[in-house]
Every structure is written in structure tokens, then in C-alpha cells.
């Protein structure tokens, strides 16, 4: 309970003593936003950790070998991930639903186990040291980046692109018959999602002194975790995934009591309870209907979760 007490009574002290947690929330929120983009366009892609790995390794390697500035490192990682996303997308985007999910799992695991763990330059299974990391200063950058990403996606979903994605998610055939270039818009979503994931990966690599090619970092475990953020938060609008990431990243900290060993069990119970009582996500369709006053205008477009 110390956690919540401190948050309420001493926010500045809380910020200073929980920088790592706040940075993690920021990174996870950007990842959830990356997942949101694909879900919003009706694609169940789990490729985010793969692109994250590309972003992280590219930026750290550029830093180590060429000593380029950080902004250029992350930009290069993001650009490389976008190119890879274009190539991967060309081959997998005609798959749908679970098939796309499994194909992207194949991609990330082939990348991690086949390429990263076997190339000498990536340090193989040992990972990479990143002496230039800045865990304390990085957190502000992460938060600014998160705000920018959320604002960008919020504007995008309100615009032409967002409406096209939404139409494709609700009914691909109908969208096509309305003249929407389905393949192109899906590809755009896939690439944007990859770029965001690589961006998050680059930022995360900058926060840690060590790039670890483990399953929890760039493998299926991470992919499932990010999917959980987006679905639990609700993927009808951009705020859902951010709320989901905030909720699920903070939950283990809230449950950290002295001598309490059943954290994961309680997390699992809460996960099931939330998804059963709000299958559309915390900020899903009907959004805040429970606390919304009667005179408040209803949301015009109902946006069901894809899948």
C-alpha cells in the first residue's frame, strides 16, 4: 500500500523514486500503441517484439561502432524496421486472424533464435553491453515520446486513414467495395506499427545498460504481453491500449506487499475478471458509460474490438 500512499501524498518523491517503473510504463504504452495500430485496422499481428529488437540492436550497434548521436541511432533503427516490415508485410498480410498471428510469431522467433542468437555482431546469446545508456535522463524523453505518439495516433484515427482502417476492420469486403485500397492501408498500418515498435525498442535500449535477447524481451512472451495491454485496455481508441499498459505494468507494483508471494496468481485472477466483465476492454465500446453523466453526449461511432 506504500505505493499508492506515496503516489497520492508525495507525487514528486514518487516520480523520483520510481523512474524505472515510469519509464517502463512509457515504453509499454508505446508498444501497446504499436499493437493498437494493427488491431485498429483489423490485423492480429504479433510482430512488435521483432521490430523492437531491430530498433534496439540497430541503435545500440550504431552507438557502439560509429558513435552517432542518439536521435540518429533511433531514427536509423526505426527506418530499418520499416523496411523490414515492408518486406515481411508483402508476404504475410494476406493472412487473417490467428493465421497472421502465428505467422508473425514465426517471424519474431526466427529472427530472435535464428538470426540474433547466431550473429557474432549481436553478441549472440550473451547480449550487448550499452555503456552509453541513460536510465535516469531517458525517462523524460520516453514520456515526451509517448505524448507525441498518442497525439499522432489520435489525430490519425480521426482522419481519412483512421476511417479507412476502421472500415477494413469492420468488414474488409465492404471496405473494398467502397473503393478503399485494402492492401495498401493494411500495409501502411503494419509499417506504422513496426516503426512505433522499433522506436520503443530504441528508447528501451537507451534506458538499459544491457540488450538481452531473451524470450521475455523480444520473444513470444513479450508479444503476448503487448497484445494483453491492447486488448485489456480496449482497442476501440488509442487511449485504451495506453490505459491497459498503465494498468498491467503498475499492477505488480501495487500487489507488492511484504511477504506476499501470490502476486502472479492475483494478477491472473484480475486479468480474467476484467476481460470477462469488460470483454471490449477497459476503455472499450460504451467507454465510460458507468460514470458518464446523463447529459454528456454519447460517442457517435461504436468501435468493437477486432479479432
Amino acid at each position, binding site marked *: 500500500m506504500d505505493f499508492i500512499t506515496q503516489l497520492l501524498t508525495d507525487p514528486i518523491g514518487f516520480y523520483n523514486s520510481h523512474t524505472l517503473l515510469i519509464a517502463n510504463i512509457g515504453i509499454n504504452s508505446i508498444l501497446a500503441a504499436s499493437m493498437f495500430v494493427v488491431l485498429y485496422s483489423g490485423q492480429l499481428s504479433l510482430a512488435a517484439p521483432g521490430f523492437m529488437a531491430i530498433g534496439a540492436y540497430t541503435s545500440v550497434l550504431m552507438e557502439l561502432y560509429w558513435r552517432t548521436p542518439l536521435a540518429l541511432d533511433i531514427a536509423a533503427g526505426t527506418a530499418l524496421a520499416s523496411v523490414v516490415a515492408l518486406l515481411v508485410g508483402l508476404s504475410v498480410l494476406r493472412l487473417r486472424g490467428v493465421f497472421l498471428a502465428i505467422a508473425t*510469431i514465426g517471424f519474431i522467433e526466427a529472427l530472435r533464435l535464428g538470426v540474433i542468437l*547466431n550473429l557474432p555482431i549481436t553478441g549472440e546469446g550473451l547480449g550487448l553491453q550499452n555503456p552509453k545508456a541513460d536510465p535516469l535522463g531517458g525517462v523524460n524523453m520516453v514520456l515526451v515520446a509517448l505524448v507525441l505518439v498518442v497525439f499522432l495516433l489520435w489525430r490519425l484515427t480521426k482522419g481519412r486513414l483512421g476511417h479507412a482502417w476502421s472500415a477494413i476492420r469492420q468488414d474488409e469486403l465492404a471496405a473494398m467495395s467502397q473503393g478503399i485500397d485494402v492492401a495498401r492501408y493494411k500495409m501502411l498500418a503494419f509499417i506504422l506499427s513496426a516503426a512505433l515498435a522499433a522506436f520503443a525498442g530504441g528508447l528501451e535500449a537507451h534506458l538499459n545498460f544491457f540488450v538481452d535477447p531473451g524470450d521475455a524481451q523480444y520473444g513470444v512472451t513479450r508479444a503476448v504481453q503487448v497484445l494483453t495491454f491492447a*486488448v485489456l485496455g480496449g482497442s476501440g481508441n488509442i487511449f485504451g491500449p495506453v490505459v491497459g499498459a498503465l494498468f498491467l505494468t503498475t499492477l505488480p507494483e501495487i500487489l507488492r506487499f511484504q511477504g506476499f508471494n501470490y502476486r502472479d496468481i492475483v494478477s491472473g485472477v484480475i486479468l480474467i475478471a476484467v*476481460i470477462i466483465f469488460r470483454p*471490449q476492454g477497459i476503455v472499450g465500446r460504451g467507454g465510460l458509460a458507468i460514470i458518464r453523466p446523463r447529459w454528456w453526449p454519447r460517442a457517435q461511432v461504436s468501435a468493437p474490438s477486432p479479432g
Partner: protein
Amino acid sequence: MGQQLLNAIFFGSIYALFAVGYTLVFGILDILNLAHSAVFMFGAAITYSLVVNHGQSFWVACVLGVGACAVMGLVIEHVCLRPLRRRRAPPIAALISTIGLALIIVAAIEQGRPGTFFAWLWVDGANSVSFPPAAVPNPTWHVAGLTLEASRIAIIPISIVLMLVLGYVMRYTQVGRGLRAVAENPRAARLMGLNVDRMITLTLVISSALGGVAGILFGVSLGDISPYIGRDNVEVRGLAVIVLGGMGSIPGAVVGGYLLGLIELIALLARGSSARDGIAFAALFLMLVLRPQGLFGAQLREKV
């Protein structure tokens, strides 16, 4: 080489048995049951615990272990799936609720140490343990330079018999017809007087029991039982297997299991152990890109 081929067949049988349960649920519900790998682990852990901590004989423990997994199937249905069906939730919600259940099962085993709440279930925490040699009958023969352990050899006939029985039930019995009807169209099945909820419950019980059998066989013959065996060994490979064979197809899952064992063997021989998993997943990726319906899958349905 002969020994490695034998190992490939052995791993293939485990993958096949595990994936049959996975694909059964997917074929009927169109849902990936991500708690299946936790049930796999649960079967192995319960059996170990019954033999070592509760002094049961191995065979009794096996029966009880499979029974416990079947009960876990009931839990999956009643806790994770049925409430969501009632609310007409999107299928992706079921993915999340089964992940939640998997988290709970793994954490319960992980926290089982002497003196804790779960000590009756498991006492070794996150450690990897193996059956004491005296507890499990395991004669070993040496034939033509190959080491044949009964526990590993037994897996092959056990898997094949179980899969044949399942295939027979699905194809020729009243229950199997009911299950296939539900898979085809739940609404029409209900209108024809089938109890759809009961059929789905039955599916999960069968699937989880098969997962438990796979887990026990794995634990006995590999001598590696820990809370993470499901996650590390079969969770993602199970997906690869059902994709190789064709989603929802039982013969496909069987062939896919052996195929994955073979692909891993070839990768191992060609590039060494570090490349084994990478090549298996690259094969999965290629399979989906080139032939998404799998080896035995029907024409891909237009579905989100």
C-alpha cells in the same frame, strides 16, 4: 544418427499429442487455448508430486494426473470461455482469459514450496526435478548401438493409440458427429437439439486430458519437470505443429508433430543446436506464406 532419428520421432510424438488437444479446441471453437501448455505442465507436476510427495504408486499417480488435467479442462470452460460466450465477446477476449488462467496455474506451481499454501500441490518451487529412478519402471535395452529406454519407446504406441481412438470417436460415433456439428455451425447444432455447451465442455476435457498425458510422458522420459516446461517446450511449437498440419485438423496435427520433430533434427544436423529453433520457426513462417491452409487443411475460410 539412428539415435537422433529415434529422438526426433520421440519429440514428434510429444508434439503431436500436445497439438492434437490444441487443434481440437481450435477446430471446434475457433479459439486458441493458450492455457493448454500450462495444463501440459500441470499434468507432469501433479504426477510427480503424487509419486514423490504423497507416496502413490506411479500408475495411480498417472491416472490421477490425467484426471486433474481433465478437471482443469472444466475450469478452462467454466471460468475462461463460457462467461465470454454468454456475453458474445470477440474471440480475442478468450485468448486473454486463457492467458490469465495459464498465468495462475504456472504461478501456483511456482509458489509451491514447503510451508506455503500450495505445498500440497508442489514443493520444489521453480526448480527442475525428475522422477527418482526407482519410482518409474524403465527397463533399458541396447540394440545395434541404440539405447532404447522403455519410457521413450512407449510414447510412440501410446500417442498413436490415443490419436487413433480420438480419430475413431470423431468420425464414427454419435458424440463425434455432435462435435463436428458444433464445429461446423454452433447455431444450427443448437437448433438440431444438440447441447452445444456440453459438447464444448467435453472438447475441453478431452483436449486437456490429452495435454496432461503429453506432459506426463514428457516429464517421465526427459526427467525435466518444472513450472516452465510447457512454456519453454511446447507452447509455441504446438502452434507451429497445428499450422504445419492445418488448423483444426487432427490427422494434420499428428503429421505436423512428426514433421516438426524431423525439421528440428535436420536443422540440428545441418547447423548445430543453436540454429535448431530458428530454423523450425523459419519453416513455420514459410509454410504460412506458401500454403496457409497447412498440409491437411481445407480451403481457407474467409474469416477475420
